């Protein structure tokens, strides 16, 4: 009976994703061309990694608004670190260093909210302001030119793990970033489902009092959850800034709403400590397919924002109503 329930939550999201994709493909067949598919996957990399991190914290019942400041700050510290040691960076250490910075920064949120029993959401509003600006008070300029960026990092955007010539003469390049997304998702899935600490995160989300009685230390679990959140968001951040080729603090600010939408769309439920890696990937797929095809479909420039808002609303309506219908005919 549980097997059926698990699949059902996922099937609703996959059905919604396929529904939107087929409707788009009917209107504009180019949506399913190799180029566009690779392009959509590339667009989903940042959202995917960040949403995975957001989910880990949401499972413990906390909602964090400072994700973009943490990702920006970790990227900045990583780039400065490379400049100081004069190393041009590489595809492995860039993510490890950024992830560590992100984990350390995010753990501050976790510590304050757990130690003083404040809601994570409330703390994140304060720390979002601090993380986003504390380092730039003293710097003459918070901008890093392309020349000053570690050169190998700049190659991230042109490195494709799969490139083929699509029909319309446009190339289809699958960016190496997808490997990072897949590895992060796999690692997080293993951690959350296969390790005792990972189950502790679900336990903390299930019942804050019982988790201590069973033998977990709530502070450790909270710090680990925030560390995973910080690491994921930081990895997404360094990936974003390597693609951008330059560093400006304000660049990443408005990407936060998509990450939150993907997490909630992916079936993340703070009250019941629910959330799964599969659900998140489906949520990210839905948000990306909505946001990355409208111009291709010829939606006039003025109507894009309106259409995105309308589709997210209808999508949420669809998944909630079908979930409620499932709940009812399962007799619960």
């Amino acid at each position, binding site marked *: *009976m549980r097997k059926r*329930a698990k699949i059902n939550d996922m099937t609703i999201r996959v059905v919604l994703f396929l529904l939107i994709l087929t409707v788009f493909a009917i209107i504009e067949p180019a949506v399913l061309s190799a180029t566009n598919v690779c392009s959509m996957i590339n667009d989903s990399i940042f959202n995917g990694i960040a949403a995975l991190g957001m989910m880990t914290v949401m499972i413990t019942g906390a909602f964090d608004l400072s994700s973009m400041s943490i990702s920006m700050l970790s990227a900045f510290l990583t780039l400065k670190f490379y400049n100081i040691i004069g190393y041009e960076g590489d595809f492995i250490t860039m993510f490890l260093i950024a992830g560590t910075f992100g984990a350390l920064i995010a753990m501050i949120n976790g510590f304050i909210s757990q130690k003083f029993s404040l809601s994570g959401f409330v703390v994140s509003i304060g720390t979002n302001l601090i993380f986003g600006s504390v380092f730039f008070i003293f710097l003459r300029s918070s901008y890093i030119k392309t020349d000053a960026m570690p050169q190998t990092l700049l190659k991230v955007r042109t490195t494709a793990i799969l490139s083929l010539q699509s029909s319309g003469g446009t190339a289809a390049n699958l960016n190496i970033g997808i490997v990072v997304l897949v590895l992060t998702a796999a690692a997080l899935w293993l951690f959350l489902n296969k390790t005792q600490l990972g189950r502790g995160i679900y336990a903390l989300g299930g019942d804050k*009092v019982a988790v201590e009685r069973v033998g977990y230390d709530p502070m450790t679990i909270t710090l680990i959850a925030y560390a995973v959140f910080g690491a994921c968001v930081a990895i997404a951040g360094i990936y974003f800034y390597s693609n951008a080729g330059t560093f400006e603090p304000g660049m990443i600010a408005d990407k936060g709403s998509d990450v939150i939408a993907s997490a909630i769309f992916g079936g993340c439920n703070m009250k019941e400590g629910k959330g799964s890696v599969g659900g998140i990937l489906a949520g990210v797929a839905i948000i990306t397919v909505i946001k990355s095809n409208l111009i291709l479909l010829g939606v006039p420039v003025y109507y894009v924002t309106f259409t995105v808002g309308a589709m997210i609303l209808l999508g949420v309506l669809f998944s909630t109503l079908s979930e409620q219908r499932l709940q009812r005919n399962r007799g619960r």
Partner: protein
Amino acid sequence: MSEYFLEIRGVSKSFQAVRALDQVDLRVKPGESKCLAGENGCGKSTLIKIISGVYTPDCGEIVIKGKSYTSLTPTQSIAAGIQVIYQDFSLFPNLTVAENIAMEYNLFHKKRTVSKKRDRELAKRVVDEIGVPLDLDAEVKSLSVGEKQVVAICRALLLEAELIIMDEPTTALTAKEVAALYKIIEGLKARGIALIFVSHKLDEVLKVAESLCILRDGKNVIDGPKEDFDKAKISYYMTGRDVVFTPFQPKELGETIFQAEGLRLAGTFSDISFSLRRGEVLGITGLLGSGRTELAEAIFGLRPLDGGKLTLFGEELHLKGGDSAVNAGIGYLPEDRLTQGLFLNVEIERNISAGIIRKFSQNPLGIIDKAGLHREVAAQVEALQIKLGDLQDPVSSLSGGNQQRVVLAKWLAIGPKVLLLNCPTVGVDVGSKQNIHETIKTLAGEGIGMIVISDDLPEILSVCSRVLVMNKGRFTGEYGACDLDEETLQGMLAKA
């Protein structure tokens, strides 16, 4: 090696000014099932927390299998074979049954990785031992209260517990589930596991315990074998005064106040008909899943009826949820006090006035007549003698009994014509329970239509004048309270 598994000698504990335990002794032999009884606030939960290592005692010693400790940590307590099943079971609703059972075992044995297969095997072994069918893959959220209890017991057994402490195990259970629990307890005793059974429900105490230790205000009152106790004596020791239950005889029966004909809610209950007359207290009882709570919520308008008619003083009622029931004068004391009945961290005054805000703000701007509201609240508090410090204190600072009186005050404030009470004395000490029963009877006398829905059979028998038995969504019988006793009523519950 002393013949006792656990000995508590002269343990005291106080929090700031309050002295919770004063030189308490307790002895449990392996395989013995002892009941620790006492009113709410007598210190029994503090004593459990000391045994399970959550609190450290101010003085005295804890001797486990001859080894003496001045204080225990949770891990030491578990290592010594002590397991506690709390009243809320402390399970994880979002995780599966197998995982809930195996989690503490894995943590205790410092397991790093998790394998679903291993968890299922561990869980299966214990569940088969207990002999209660459980779906190991179901999420605990979807289980009934009885099933959750079994999961908690299995978790304790998995850690080879030699002493299991159960805190108020039967409060939320139905009669059938309580019977199943007793069978399990027999099984545990047979395997030499000691049992401490904390309860304030007299009938449970007599049925299960071999010996009894009663506490009052943090001190030992009496400790001895079950044989030399009966119900009256136990309540005397617990409350320090004589508590007598007499069946309720309404003085005179007035005209019909409330009429229900052919009520139907798809998949829950159908053709429910009854009438309520002035002065009587109608009791509705039935097992969990008999639809009694759904019926109450339907009458209160929270669940739209699929069929049937409700008439109050002759006029037909059309309930469309929200405030329509309250406007018509129907009050409902919900089953779960902490989440449905009260606003926990909100002041007592605002809790009591939650139902009558509209009544005291009839002017166009909706301005609340604060003085009038305050007078009404004070009157209710006075009428129900609610013991409280200041009306502005949060309601969470009150004892269980007083909290229930606050919810009752909330409903009496709306001047109800009909009052539905769903398990009115759950988690309430004997003294307050007695007091609430008296209040129900006096209210009935004053002409308010009283319907008590409960599965606490002694309560039904002592408060109600007429009893309707409900099973699987149907009324299976109507009886006068005086020609009924507990055993016959118990039998009828299970009958289809």
